[in-house]
């Protein structure tokens, strides 16, 4: 099963709506609640990152019998140093993002913690792609 959601950069009132839709789908499919939580927390962190840093993005969800694979790709400034961005506490978030309760430099590490596999690629001034894989078994 494949689903695609668009994410608007800068629109905090909609941030989380794609992850919310995925949560509803996973609940309908009777996926283990612990796996749902891990998955949607990681998706929500990634979605907030797109809203906070990029111009626009997509969330592509592929649900199989044994795993869920989600690719979140955006058009934006990209990440110059992924190793640095993966460090807890490192953040380039704006004051507006911090007012929303984010921007503490915990998003990417938390995605990693809540996913079985996480792959991230980025090109400066082009965009970033985060792939999250969680096994359903």
């Amino acid at each position, binding site marked *: 099963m494949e689903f695609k959601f668009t994410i608007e950069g800068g629109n*905090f009132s909609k941030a989380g709506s794609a992850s919310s839709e995925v949560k509803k789908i996973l609940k309908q499919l009777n996926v283990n*609640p612990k796996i749902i*939580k891990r998955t949607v927390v990681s998706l929500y962190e990634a979605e907030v990152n797109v809203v906070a840093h990029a111009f626009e993005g997509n969330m592509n969800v592929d649900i199989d019998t044994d795993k869920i694979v989600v690719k979140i790709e955006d058009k934006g400034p990209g990440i110059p140093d992924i190793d640095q961005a993966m460090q807890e506490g490192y953040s380039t978030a704006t004051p507006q993002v911090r007012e929303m*309760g984010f921007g*503490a430099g915990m998003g990417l590490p938390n995605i990693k913690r809540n996913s079985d596999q996480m792959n991230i690629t980025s090109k400066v001034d082009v965009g970033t792609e985060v792939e999250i894989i969680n096994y359903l078994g």
Partner: protein
Amino acid sequence: MVKVADVVDKLNARVICGSCDMNQEIQFGFASDLMSDVLTIDTENLLLITGLNNLQTIRTSEMSDISFILFVRDKKATEEMKELACENEITLLECGHSMFRACSILNEIGLQPVY
């Protein structure tokens, strides 16, 4: 364990959204205005105590399976927040206490810290 009714009574709080059972019991409390911190918690049966009143407070709770949010410092939830909370069966409470005082009272009546 603390009943929702006791939270309302001891904090002079108001249930502003959700048709929750006042006898429902909550085991843990977590206080933060930083949603990034809330998203790292994987404890069930949790009351989120916060002064951050925006839509992302509700979204964060939705993703984290948090069913109860207490707004402190007299922060008011907007209509949009209430709608989203109701849609996700999240009970919203408001009280006028500071976060420190609210936590102190809740701990005294039996609400446990996550860590």
